[in-house]
């Protein structure tokens, strides 16, 4: 590495502090595997660092998010089907106010919904998962995915509709 790159290292470290959490969540939304997501985060920051002139990038978060999404999508393609259904995430989801019975039912339903999301086609699942992060606007998601904003909006809408229908069918069947 050149001397200028070494001199800019503290600045880059602050960049890592600021954006690593979001980049991790984007990677996890795509890969659904914590280890893969962490590898993606490291790889994304490494690529940005090695590319040089990263100080001149206007929206570095969007740039990093795009790299992370690409890497995660590639990794996902290599690894194939999602093996983790999201069951290990569920203890955090149960609301404290709910009764144990309701909580158990909600947990079961959410677990089932996560499985439904994982089964969605990738072109629907990825926009939905990124929008579900709650930190990215539709414009930013469109930039990350390299799609028009209208397409992203339509895909999120379609994905939600499919999930709602599946949920309704399940609830109608069980109730």
């Amino acid at each position, binding site marked *: *590495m050149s001397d200028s790159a070494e001199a800019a290292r503290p600045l880059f470290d602050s960049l890592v502090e600021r954006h690593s959490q979001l980049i991790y969540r984007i990677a996890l*939304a795509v890969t659904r595997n914590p280890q893969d997501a962490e590898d993606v985060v490291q790889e994304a920051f490494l690529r940005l660092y090695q590319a040089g002139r990263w100080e001149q990038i206007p929206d570095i978060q969007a740039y990093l998010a795009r790299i992370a999404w690409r890497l995660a999508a590639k990794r996902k393609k290599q690894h194939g089907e999602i093996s983790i259904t999201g069951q290990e995430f569920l203890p*955090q989801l149960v609301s404290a106010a709910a009764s144990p019975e309701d909580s158990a039912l909600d947990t079961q339903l959410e677990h089932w*919904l996560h499985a439904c999301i994982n089964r969605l086609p990738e072109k629907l699942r990825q926009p939905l998962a990124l929008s*579900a992060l709650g930190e990215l606007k539709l414009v930013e998601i469109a930039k990350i995915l390299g799609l028009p904003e209208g397409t992203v909006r339509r895909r999120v809408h379609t994905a939600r509709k499919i*999930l709602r229908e599946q*949920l*309704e069918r399940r*609830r109608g069947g069980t109730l």
Partner: protein
Amino acid sequence: MKEHIDFEPDTEDLLDRALASYTPVSPWLGLEDRVRARLSVSAQPSRRLPFFSWVWAVTSAFAVAIILALLLRSHLTIAPQNNATNRIGSSRIVANSAETESVMNAVPSHSYLERHSRSLRTHTHQPSQLQLIAQLLASGPGAIASLATAEKEQQTPIEVKPLAIKPLEIEPIQIKPIEEKPADAGGAL
């Protein structure tokens, strides 16, 4: 909004909650430290780049040299028959070199080259320009030099000078009277 009415009110709520919990997990503790460590490690291999670039440069130069050598070899072996002809031609040159040097001023050198090239043509059945050049190179530097002087000679016009008139000096015949004393016949009695 119509879709919201079609579904049960808590369906939408449940879906939102499920989506919010889809990727809620924070990374394992110390992610930033691990990223920084990875960056520090990755900075080291980049110092090896000059070595690899040297390796590439040397390898490519070696490859180019091999290709050039092969090309040169293929050019030299275009017509082995021509080489044999060259040998005949060069032997003639060696044989005639003494004579050529002795009469260099008197005999124009391009005539010799003409003769030489004519003999080559009879051997090689209309050789290409490249083959002629190869033959010329094989004949040695003397042939090239003589070709150059021949070109000069061709360029300079031949001056016709009148012959110097130098009348022959004929000594007049002197008539002497015959001596009466006969010559000694040598026959002593």
